[in-house]
């Protein structure tokens, strides 16, 4: 996958007119343009924060804000898909001697802004977590960090393993782009969390809805973009150190980043980053959960070079985690499961311990990426990215082999080693008539899986090639977009059946398309509409599973004749924002034909551990429709109320039934009091929040050992401030308490809801020290 760095060149020009005393005559004008292509950015919003003043850049990328009074302002430049850019401007200091009646252009400075341009269709909702909002999630895993966004929930296995869920879809139905490369782990497993350290990113974005054209297969529910900041080319040394402590699990997280340029080596930038995490047993309101510790050690290195239109970036990251799995969740038979459900709490009792014993999973993920791009003078741009990922997953069962000599080896009972090579070439053609911009690309993926231990999924080799073409037309607040893609995939699997090697070959081919429109009526009000398709080939576990899934007490059987899943997604949103109000309302309808799910079979399967309910991977047509609503209102100065509602209804259209494991509806409310800056303290706030999660009542009857848990309501409080220690040093402090009243609850999408309650009260302290340029 590739990522495009586009830059905005924002030239601020200040002029002060002294003539009119009554009406202020200062103005700011300038040009917003793309530094690399030199093309003016049309339709960008430039506004003065805190005032109801904003304009769009004209077809030449020019803007002008008039009738400003002398004073300090923050100017913000926004365009969909770019990182918002802010610049403080001072219309008073040091310019009095220049006051004259004539317009005089004073270049404040040339500000080069490097912004990550998201490649998702611009007409699809893009929700971003960055800055202070991201800081508040520091120390949590990727899934947990994204949980606060509307329409995003998590699928959990206990408290330490969580997978993001977008609009009710997860695992192989969403795609994670880690620094521009599609993350390839063993995503099919519900207890296989994304192998990404969120500290790598300064921006986490979620593209909601099918985005198959730009990203290829699997982008059915949406795409998560994990994006680091651009490297600090030619800048001094800077960095940050983070320390986070959590009371629950007595967890500590340390993370640091150092970055800079190299003096005497123009155009060079580098960054080194690392994170250590260690936690022990999690406590529910009434008891500890045995063996729920975590140990994580991650690091990443990046280096890059820029010269003229040429850019080269190298990136390496290693993610290494060891996660204990709650030992009370191990069951041998349905009787075991029914007994623990009947007991209401786990049979295994424990105190606090940092020890991680069996069962556990030990996962490392290595990513190496090399990217190069070249901007031609005429506006064309070429980008080539290659990446290699090695995902090494080792799972240790509760019980070692009975045989002593085998047990002494302490081998994992399951090992998966997945190696993936991706290759992406993207050509951004020069704008046609200054209005139509577009890109063409080819992506290849090759991967092979090596498996050992208990038979679960086969070994496989997989090759995928995709070709896409997207064009975008921008004019006067309108943005129209259309794209098409073709993918071809071959999969060859190798299994042992009755001691014989059996090979199977599969081929999948699909077209995807997208059309969308965005209309910016003003800087306050915009409407967007997108229809897109995406597809997904059945994964090896859906094709070849054959055995008892012990976590679910179910016998699961794959079907080698499954076809590809195809989604048609329509998504629309309306956004209004002014200084005190903001409302975003989004609605979606995602129709997935040949949706793959586990269908209960009438007869149970008999095993030596008794009879297990029998489920078979089957295809149906499913509809996912929902509403995401978020709004905030500063009803008294400095006090803002925020509400977020996620509503989802899912239906199996072919069988006239509901589907299992669909996130229940939720409502998140927050009240935030922002204190005014005092001395060296700024960005000080206090907030209190409540999360209400309804009971999932739309489930097929008798489909589960235990009915979905009751609705719950959790309270949380947060406070934070930033202390400017010196010109180049800043300390940020944050505290929070989650589940303030130690409420006992269980969540429908936590696979351990059969065995134990969810996490109890969790207080945390965050410290962040930023230094340098």
């Amino acid at each position: 996958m590739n990522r495009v760095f586009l830059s905005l060149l924002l030239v601020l020009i200040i002029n002060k007119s002294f003539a009119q005393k009554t009406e202020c005559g200062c103005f700011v004008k300038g040009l917003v343009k793309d530094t690399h292509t030199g093309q003016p950015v049309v339709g960008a919003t430039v506004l003065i924060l805190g005032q109801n003043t904003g304009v769009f850049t004209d077809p030449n990328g020019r803007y002008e804000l008039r009738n400003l009074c002398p004073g300090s302002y923050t100017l913000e430049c926004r365009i969909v898909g770019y990182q918002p850019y802010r610049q403080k401007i001072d219309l008073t200091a040091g310019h009095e001697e220049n006051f004259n009646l004539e317009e005089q252009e004073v270049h404040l400075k040339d500000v080069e802004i490097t912004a990550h341009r998201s490649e998702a269709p611009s007409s699809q909702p893009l929700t971003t977590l960055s800055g202070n909002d991201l800081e508040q999630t520091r120390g949590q895993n990727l899934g947990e960090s994204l949980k606060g966004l509307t329409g995003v929930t998590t699928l959990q296995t206990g408290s330490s393993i969580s997978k993001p869920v977008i609009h009710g879809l997860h695992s192989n139905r969403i795609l994670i782009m880690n620094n521009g490369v599609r993350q390839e782990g063993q995503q099919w497993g519900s207890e296989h969390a994304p192998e990404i350290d969120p500290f790598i990113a300064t921006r986490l974005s979620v593209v909601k809805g099918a985005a198959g054209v730009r990203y290829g297969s699997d982008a059915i529910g949406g795409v998560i973009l994990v994006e680091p900041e651009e490297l600090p080319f030619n800048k001094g040394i800077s960095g940050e150190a983070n320390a986070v402590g959590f009371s629950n699990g007595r967890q500590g997280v340390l993370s640091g980043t150092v970055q800079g340029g190299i003096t005497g080596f123009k155009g060079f930038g580098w960054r080194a980053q690392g994170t250590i995490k260690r936690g022990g047993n999690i406590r529910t309101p009434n008891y500890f959960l045995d063996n729920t510790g975590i140990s994580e050690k991650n690091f990443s290195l990046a280096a890059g070079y820029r010269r003229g239109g040429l850019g080269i970036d190298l990136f390496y990251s290693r993610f290494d985690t060891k996660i204990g799995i709650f030992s009370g969740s191990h069951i041998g038979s349905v009787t075991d499961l029914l007994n623990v459900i009947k007991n209401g709490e786990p049979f295994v009792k424990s105190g606090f311990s940092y020890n991680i014993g069996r069962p556990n999973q030990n996962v490392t993920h290595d990513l190496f990426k090399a990217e190069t791009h070249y901007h031609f003078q005429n506006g064309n741009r070429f980008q080539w990215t290659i990446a290699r990922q090695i995902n090494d997953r080792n799972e240790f069962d509760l019980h070692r082999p009975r045989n002593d000599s085998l047990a002494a080896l302490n081998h994992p009972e399951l090992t998966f080693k997945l190696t993936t090579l991706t290759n992406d070439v993207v050509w951004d053609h020069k704008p046609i008539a200054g209005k139509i911009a577009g890109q063409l690309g080819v992506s290849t993926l090759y991967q092979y899986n090596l498996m050992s231990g208990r038979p679960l999924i086969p070994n496989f080799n997989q090759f995928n090639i995709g070709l896409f073409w997207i064009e975008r037309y921008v004019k006067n607040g309108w943005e129209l977009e259309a794209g098409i893609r073709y993918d071809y995939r071959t999969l060859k699997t190798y299994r042992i059946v009755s001691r014989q090697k059996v090979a199977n070959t599969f081929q999948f081919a699909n077209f995807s398309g997208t059309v969308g429109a965005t209309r910016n009526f003003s800087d306050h009000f915009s409407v967007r509409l997108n229809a897109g398709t995406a597809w997904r080939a059945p994964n090896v576990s859906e094709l070849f599973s054959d055995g008892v899934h012990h976590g679910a007490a179910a016998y699961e059987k794959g079907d080698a004749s499954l076809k590809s899943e195809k989604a048609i997604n329509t998504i629309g949103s309306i956004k209004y924002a002014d200084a005190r109000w903001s409302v975003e309302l989004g609605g979606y309808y995602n129709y997935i034909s040949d949706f793959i799910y586990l269908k209960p079979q009438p007869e149970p399967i008999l095993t030596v551990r008794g009879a297990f309910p029998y489920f078979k991977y089957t295809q149906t047509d499913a509809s996912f429709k929902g509403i995401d609503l978020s709004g905030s209102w500063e009803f008294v100065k400095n006090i803002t109320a925020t509400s977020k509602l996620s509503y989802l209804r899912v239906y199996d259209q072919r069988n006239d039934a509901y589907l299992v494991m669909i996130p229940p509806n939720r409502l998140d409310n927050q009240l935030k009091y922002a204190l005014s800056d005092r001395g060296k303290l700024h960005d000080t706030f206090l907030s209190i929040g409540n999360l209400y999660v309804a009971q999932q009542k739309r489930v097929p009857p008798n489909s589960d050992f235990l009915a979905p848990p009751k609705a719950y309501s959790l309270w949380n409080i947060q406070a934070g401030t930033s202390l400017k220690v010196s010109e180049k040093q800043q300390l940020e402090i944050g505290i929070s308490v989650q589940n303030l009243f130690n409420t006992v609850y269980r969540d429908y999408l936590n696979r351990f809801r059969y065995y134990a309650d969810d996490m109890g009260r969790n207080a945390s302290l965050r410290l962040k020290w930023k230094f340098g340029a």
Partner: protein
Amino acid sequence: MKMKRNLVWLLLIGTALSFTNCKDSGDAVEPDDENELITSVTLKFTEQGTSTTTSFSYKDADGDGGNAATQFDTIALKPNKTYTMTVELLDESKTPTDDITKEIKEKADEHLFIFTPSPATLLTYTYGDKDKNNYPIGLTGKAVTGATGIGKLTVQLRHQPGAKNGTPEPGSDDVNLNFNLKVQ
């Protein structure tokens, strides 16, 4: 034109690079090896005062899934008799056959058999063996039948590493089979 040619070269190199690491995962397929597999459970009843032994088995040679169980006997016993009952567990998917009974004997302090007749009057079971902590095991024991009747005998092997306390609660099932039981 020159630039285009360069691009073509870049593309070719890129494609070539993406295949240099290709490996055939088919070469590395190893036969499966499930640690805890039990494919056959046999209960052997020897009537007291005789040497006739009758065996009743559950057999699923390829383990869970694949082919269904090939044998699941009904336990047929005489009323009001005392039997010596022993249990034999095998993993027949391995060559040679893995004797699980022996492994359980070695790890007796982690395992406990539970025999539950239903209705309870059909059979009374008394453990005939003990582990080093003086807790019962159940590899051998005494079964006394009651009056004529039909019902079920549930055979459970509880795996209780580090937690065995003589009760069924700790641990999880390694075996959980509902044999039909006929006393006549």
